[in-house]
């Protein structure tokens, strides 16, 4: 009874209104390059002090969903992803926009986001306790195996240009090594600079690699060709059922990837979108068109990154363990309102838990009107003369990279990453592997070290045999590396024999 009442509380006018406000604010902040979910939530946090817990959660969940989806608007329209998790969306979204189909691209991104979000919400409300138990199965060894599988997707992403793709991936891994070692207090690759001790953050690199290098590319074409492809203003056109046919399986698969990644504490929406994009590029029947404006790639990235929201709520609500920085802020909000988060939350406060489920579902539906409004607002921005628009983007890039951690060195990192990425792009290096290497690198190092410490003096065989999950994941990774090579050899044999 409590749970039903709780769920219905998400539908009171006040909570609905706050939820919508949250989605709108989140989407606008998310659409601004460099300002991500954490910034959006921190901005709204002080307002929640005066609200009751249900209303506060409705607002924060709205911001959470809105900010993840909002990043894709700028990714599609001006090729500068607003948030790390929408970096993949720009890969095919922008080519679509250039072909004059920006409204359709936003429609794909929006509908995939809503579908992914609702899917994870359903999973959340049905299977939270079971999934929380599953999340607990993931120790250092299993995490290591999972990340290893994630890294293999670099190989499928860089299909056609294996060497450059792998080189870019290694570059990302090396960037992840900068800063203090987690296992001793030694500093690595810091050139004696104290500010580099804390390592290279993801946000400045993403902003530099995707947004700033795009600005440089455009400045160049303005300079030498005297013109740029006009960025068309846009609306939102949802894809029809007919266009969806043949893509449902991809949508479901990407939503599952997003939900699972969300459940693992310490990962995030950026990881999910890259993994799902890599998987789609490996298996989609339309993979030849990736990078030229193929909706499959947008579907994969957007449904996965929004499915993370529901997944991340699983350990947050069931165990009191936040899955990412945003859910950590939500738990703090619970605490401020006198609700102690943790394992007892679901039994002691079913009302608030089911209210949260419902608010998350509602937030996903509210993304549609919020997206229409944000796109309209964004049109004003797009009507600015190109040089001024790009100037704004640069200012936002610098602001966003500084704002993430408040460290001046991050601004320098953004600049250097922007120029380097511009050069690398001209040389035909793909950019996603760099980001994947950096996103997964720090966790990869941590899990290798932890795994070795946990193994201790135990033999490798018994250590590995103790974890069936890890064995399955290792087999998958091996398969993902071996399959392309095998199929190539088989093809070649057939050709020579025939």
């Amino acid at each position: 009874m409590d749970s039903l009442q709780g769920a219905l509380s998400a539908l009171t006018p006040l909570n609905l209104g706050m939820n919508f406000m949250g989605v709108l604010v989140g989407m606008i902040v998310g659409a601004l390059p460099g300002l991500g979910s954490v910034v959006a939530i921190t901005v709204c946090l002080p307002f929640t002090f005066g609200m009751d817990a249900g209303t506060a959660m409705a607002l924060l969940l709205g911001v959470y969903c809105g900010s993840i989806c909002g990043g894709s608007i700028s990714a599609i329209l001006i090729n500068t992803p607003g948030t790390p998790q929408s970096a993949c969306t720009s890969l095919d979204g922008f080519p679509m926009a250039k072909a004059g189909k920006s409204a359709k691209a936003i429609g794909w991104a929006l509908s995939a986001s809503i579908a992914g979000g609702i899917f994870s919400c359903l999973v959340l409300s049905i299977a939270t306790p079971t999934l929380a138990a599953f999340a607990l199965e993931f120790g250092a060894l299993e995490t290591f195996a999972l990340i290893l599988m994630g890294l293999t997707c670099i190989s499928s992403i860089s299909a056609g240009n294996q060497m450059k793709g792998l080189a870019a991936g290694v570059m990302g891994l090396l960037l992840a090594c900068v800063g203090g070692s987690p296992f001793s207090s030694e500093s690595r690759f810091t050139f004696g600079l104290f500010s580099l001790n804390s390592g290279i953050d993801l946000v400045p690199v993403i902003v530099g690699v995707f947004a700033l290098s795009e600005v440089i590319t455009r400045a160049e074409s303005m300079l030498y060709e005297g013109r740029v492809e006009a960025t068309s203003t846009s609306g939102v056109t949802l894809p029809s059922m007919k266009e969806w046919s043949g893509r449902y399986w991809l949508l479901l698969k990407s939503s599952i990837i997003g939900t699972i990644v969300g459940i693992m504490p310490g990962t995030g929406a950026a990881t999910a979108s890259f993994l799902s994009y890599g998987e789609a590029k490996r298996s989609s029947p339309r993979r030849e068109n990736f990078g030229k404006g193929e909706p499959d790639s947008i579907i994969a990235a957007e449904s996965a990154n929004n499915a993370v929201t529901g997944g991340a709520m699983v350990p947050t609500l069931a165990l009191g363990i936040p899955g990412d920085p945003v859910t950590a802020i939500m738990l703090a909000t619970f605490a401020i309102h006198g609700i102690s988060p943790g394992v007892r939350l679901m039994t002691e406060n079913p009302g608030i838990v089911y209210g949260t489920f419902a608010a998350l579902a509602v937030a996903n539906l509210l993304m549609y009107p919020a997206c229409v409004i944000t796109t309209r607002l964004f049109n004003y921005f797009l009507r600015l003369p190109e040089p001024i628009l790009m100037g704004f983007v640069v200012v936002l890039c610098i602001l966003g990279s500084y704002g993430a951690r408040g460290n001046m060195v991050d601004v320098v990192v953004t600049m250097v990453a922007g120029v380097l990425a511009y050069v690398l792009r001209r040389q035909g290096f793909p950019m996603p592997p760099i980001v994947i290497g950096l996103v997964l690198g720090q966790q990869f190092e941590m899990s290798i070290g932890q795994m070795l410490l946990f193994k201790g003096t135990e033999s490798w065989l018994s250590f590995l045999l103790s974890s069936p999950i890890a064995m399955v994941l290792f087999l998958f990774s091996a398969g993902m590396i071996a399959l392309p090579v095998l199929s190539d050899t088989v093809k070649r044999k057939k050709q020579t024999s025939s």
Partner: protein
Amino acid sequence: MIRRIFCLALMFVVTLCTAAHAAYPDHPITLIVPFGAGGGTDVPARLVANMLEKKLGQPIVVQNIVGGSGTQGVAQITGSKPDGYTLGYIPVGTVCLQPHTQKLPYGKDSFTFLGMVTRQPVVLMSSKVAPWKNLEGMIEAVRKNPNKYVVAITGTANMTHVPVVELAEKFGLQFRYIPYRSTPEIMKDMIAGRVQLHADAPAALSQFDVYGLVQYVDVPVANLNMPTTKEVGLDKPMVHWQGIMGPKNMPAEVTGTLAKAIEEVVASKEFAEEATKISSAAYWMGPEAFQKQFDQEFEYYGGVLKEMLSKK
């Protein structure tokens, strides 16, 4: 024309003078928090900032400067102008422990002390699925199986590591210390039973499904139902405190205004209640006493760490 310019210049000078003589504070104050938004340092800091700005009549902007286990943020505080407009909300580890193990741009003499805000003992927490029910049981089990049980730490030689090492030293215990990136990840592995022990502020006890084995104090703290280190014969009290500090050489009238306002907030019943809600404990200590305690602890941890690192 010349007269007009002169008048303008005069007006400008007058404005400047009044600005210089206006009572502190006359514009917003930045409070740097060296850890991320929503964490155990950030939430109490925002609570204090919220109440403090009403007392001071100027907005207080909380800025999270994250990285290097809090040292990046603290370095930013000590490097700022000592005019009272950049302050820091600082936890013990970043200023009493880290300077002994790393080369940092700040040290013992880099601060102006304004007031302590919270204070709680370190608590050694145990997983509920570990094969013991209390401290004696734990000591016995670990002695029987050296190097079997796992202690999770968030960094080498910090406040999650040193207290356990001291206990292990006293009772001749051998643990495996495994570093983690964050408390939530540790708690996941404690609930799953991969990690058995973790030392931290008692806040985690009310948030996660773990229980306390021992508290590092001489006099037991109310509502912490476990033995003290003094009772078990380990004379090494260790407390987590958080306080407001500024860079060194702040003017006396500024520190006076700030200390008075902070005292009014921290010593209030309202703050105490809010602090309890977020599993923290309000504790007021004025600038002189705070400085004295800092000096003592700085030396104390210096000695402890020197001994600990020399044995490695």
